[in-house]
Every structure is written in structure tokens, then in C-alpha cells.
């Protein structure tokens, strides 16, 4: 727990049943390149943890290790109190456990990654119907509500390629919400968007924060992070360099690197 310094992120100070996600001493290398060098992080239910940091600092890798798109080399991960069982080399011992845990996390990618051969509605019901085995009629009804919520109620039968980036990203958020995830993981959800489309996606995320969704949000939108986050983590070269409440991290940064980083962003 070397890098945990302040209260909201410290699992020791939160009731066990409140913990939505907990990461301990996570290490990840790609060949000789050590990308994560022992990251510990936790989020309680309802927390919005903003993860900031320079390009290549390991933000995406951190999110990808949480749902095992990348296999960590070392560390502990638990979701909703269920710890993922790992072998000595970090690989998951039980594929089914990984698959089950993955359905409890909702991932939103920088590049949307919608399934292009399926309409928006089909994208949103795909996982509920086929992975979670929810009756199709129920899944469709729920998908319509979700697409309505992200402002795409009139586009349910459109294919992703015919939509703007902002619309695609909002559909991707609806797809992630459709599994009713315990934690939403956002990896730079607005970085691939034209500036005028960023706002509509941030509005959707802001709503989710307001309704108390637990989220890990990798972002370069510092103003937005400051506004919605309950906790901010600054990652530098695979380590947590500084973390704390947004007012502290943004208003009174202690680390030189963080100061420089915040200046370079503006």
C-alpha cells in the first residue's frame, strides 16, 4: 500500500462492504518495459476516481489490467469484495471467474469499439441477452430506456458507422450501462472526439456521477475531473505520484511533476 496517502482512497478507512473495487500493488510489464510499478487504488461505492497523467504513464494499462484485457504480472484485484484468484505469474487461475467479474464492470473505450455490424439497439442488448441470459424482450425494453437516456432514443435501428463520434460514444456508454455494472471504467472517453462533441458525452458522464455510479475515469479534461471526481489520482511512469480530493490535487499540488503536468495541460 506504498502509494496510498489520503483518506478517500484508503481501503483501511472504508467499511469492507462499501468497497467497489480494490487494487493492490499492481505490476505490469510488456517485455522489458515496466509500465505499472506497484499501483494501489481503491474506490468505494459511489466514488468517482479520476485518473490523470501524461501520455504513456500507464493509465490505459491500469484499466486494462482491472478487467484482464492485459494480464498483470503481480498484484491483487478485487471487485465488490470478490478477489480475483491469480496464479504465481499473475495470470488468472479461473477463466470463468474472470468472465463473471467482467460482466460486473462496464468499460468505455477511447475508440468506442461498437460492433459495426449491429445496430445501436443490437449493440446494447448483445451482452445482456447472450452473456447474462436476460430474456430478449426485457433486454430490448431496458436498452430503449438506456438509449433514450443518452439521447439516442430515435437512433435505435441505426448502424454505428452512420453516427457522429459523440453519438457513438454515448451508445457505447449505454452498452456498458446495460450490464448494470458495479463499476464503470472510462478510458479517455472524449479524446477521440471533435471538440464540439466532447460536451454531449461529458453531460452523460456527469449524470452518471450525480446518480452515484462508481467510476474510474481516465481523462485529460481537467476541469471536468475537478468537477465530478471525488478522488483524483495522478499517475507518473507507472506509479501514483500524488492523489487526493480534487481541490487538493488541482488547487494545491505538492509534487513538482504534477505541478508541471497541470501547467502543460493548460
Amino acid at each position, binding site marked *: 500500500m506504498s502509494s496510498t496517502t489520503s483518506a478517500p482512497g484508503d481501503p483501511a478507512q472504508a467499511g469492507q462492504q462499501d468497497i467497489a473495487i480494490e487494487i493492490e500493488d499492481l505490476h505490469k510489464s510488456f517485455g522489458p518495459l515496466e509500465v505499472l510499478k506497484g499501483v494501489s487504488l481503491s474506490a468505494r461505492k459511489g466514488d468517482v476516481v479520476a485518473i490523470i497523467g501524461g501520455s504513456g504513464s500507464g493509465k490505459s494499462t491500469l484499466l486494462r489490467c482491472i478487467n484482464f*484485457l492485459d494480464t498483470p504480472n503481480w498484484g491483487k484485484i478485487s471487485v465488490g469484495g470478490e478477489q480475483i484468484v491469480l496464479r504465481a505469474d499473475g495470470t488468472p487461475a479461473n477463466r470463468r471467474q474472470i468472465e463473471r467479474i467482467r460482466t460486473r464492470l462496464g*468499460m468505455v*473505450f477511447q475508440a*468506442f469499439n461498437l*460492433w*459495426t455490424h*449491429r445496430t445501436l439497439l443490437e449493440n446494447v442488448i*448483445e451482452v445482456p441477452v447472450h452473456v447474462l441470459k436476460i430474456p430478449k424482450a426485457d433486454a430490448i425494453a431496458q436498452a430503449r430506456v438506456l438509449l433514450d437516456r443518452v439521447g439516442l432514443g430515435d437512433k435505435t435501428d441505426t448502424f454505428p458507422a452512420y453516427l457522429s463520434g459523440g453519438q457513438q460514444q454515448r451508445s457505447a456508454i449505454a452498452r456498458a450501462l446495460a*450490464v448494470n455494472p458495479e463499476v464503470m471504467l472510462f478510458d479517455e472517453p472524449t479524446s477521440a472526439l471533435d471538440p464540439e462533441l466532447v460536451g454531449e458525452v461529458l453531460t452523460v458522464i456527469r449524470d452518471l456521477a450525480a446518480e452515484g455510479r462508481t467510476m474510474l475515469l481516465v481523462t485529460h479534461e481537467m476541469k471536468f475531473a475537478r468537477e465530478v471526481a471525488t478522488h483524483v489520482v495522478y499517475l507518473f511512469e507507472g506509479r501514483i505520484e500524488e492523489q487526493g480530493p480534487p481541490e487538493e490535487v488541482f488547487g494545491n499540488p505538492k509534487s513538482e511533476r504534477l505541478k508541471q503536468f497541470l501547467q502543460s495541460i493548460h
Partner: protein
Amino acid sequence: MDALLDILGLTEAARLLSLSPPGWGMNLLRGLVNSLQIAFGAFGMGLVIGLFGAYGKLYGGPVLRDLLAIYTTVIRAVPELVLILILYYVGTDLINKAATMLGHGRVEISGVVAGIWVLGIVQGAYATEVLRGAIQAVPAGQIEAARVFGMPPFMLMRRVTIPAMMSFAIPGLANLWLIATKDTALLAIVGFNELTLETRQAAASTRAYFTFFLAAGALYLIVTLCSGVVFGRVEKWARRGQPSLREARR
């Protein structure tokens, strides 16, 4: 009708091609049906082999990958006619040896089944490469999106990879199907009564070579044209959701 044929000088041809004896039309059609049966079977078998081959090449261990590399290289290097001779004679020989060892005596191997196996193995090698390329063309993000929501591997293949790769695979697979229909003609060499052999027999018996080979050519052409229509539809379906280049240029 008769008068028209007379004016065109086709009375003789019509008589030779008539569906009832002494015309040979029925023989040609029977040959066509046999050819199509083999082409269908071989194409289907090629698809199955190709799917396993492609997944094996992409995700298999080193031994499997090497074996598949040998398979696709050898099959694609050797002329099809030679392969057919080898696979047909070696294949039937092996089966007969096995049958005698098990105390069954000689087994009669149906021409259609043998043809499907032989051409299917050839088609499988090409299909492996077509499907491997198509799978690799699927954007990695779409596969990741499926994994990240907990799809198990087989469901992922069925629900995401295969539908998403279809649009890349269809043109190559359409080629393979047309090659399959025409490769059936090579089976004439092992005495199988497909369209080409039936045509040759009809032509030899009547000396009307021109008439019969022209008729056979027309039948092959009709098959190709119909296939074109079918594959056109399938490709349109497989490309659903992708704006066409023409739309994109606007």
C-alpha cells in the same frame, strides 16, 4: 418453334440435346447435378477446415501452426490435377487397406463422397488463408469490447468475429466457390460422372463435339451467373452497417 429452329439451322442440335432419349440432355443435367453436389460438399468442407485452420494459425501453439503451414503450402503448391490423383488413389487405397485389416473386404467408395473429400481438402487450404486474412482484418477493438463484457471464447467467435469478418471474407469465398464448381471437371480423370465427363461421352458417341461442349459451357456459365447473384446478396448482408465507398465519397 420448330420452324424457328429450322431457320436457325438448330434442329439437329435441339434433337441431340433433348431431355428424352435419344437426346443426351438428361445425361448432361445429371452430370451437372453431380458436379454441383460435389462443389457444395467440397465448399462446405473447405469452410469448416478453413475456419479451424485460420483459428489454428492465429491462436494455435507452435506445433499446430507448423502443421497448418505445411498443409496450406503443399496443397497450394501442387497442381490440383496431381492432388486429385494422389488423394483419390491414395485415399481409396488407404481406406481399402484399413477395411481389409478390420475384416470388411473391399469397400465401394462413392464417387460423390470421394470427390467431396478430395476437393474439400484442396478448398480447405485456400479457405484457411482467406479466413485468416478476414479474421485479422476485424478491428481489434471489437474483439476487445466483447472480451471486456465477459464473452466466452466460442460465443465471441460466433457472435462477433465471424459476423464482423464476413464482409472481408465473402469476395474470397465467392472465388473459392466458383473454383470449386470448375474443379469438379478435374474429377473426370478418375472416372467420375460429372458434367465434363458426361459431355465428353455424349460428344464422342454422336460426334457432335461442338454442340455438346458449347452446351456444357453454357451450363457452367449459368451456374456462375446464379452464384454471382447469390453472393451479391450475401455480401450486401455481410456489409450491413458499413457505408459503401460511393456513399462515403459524397
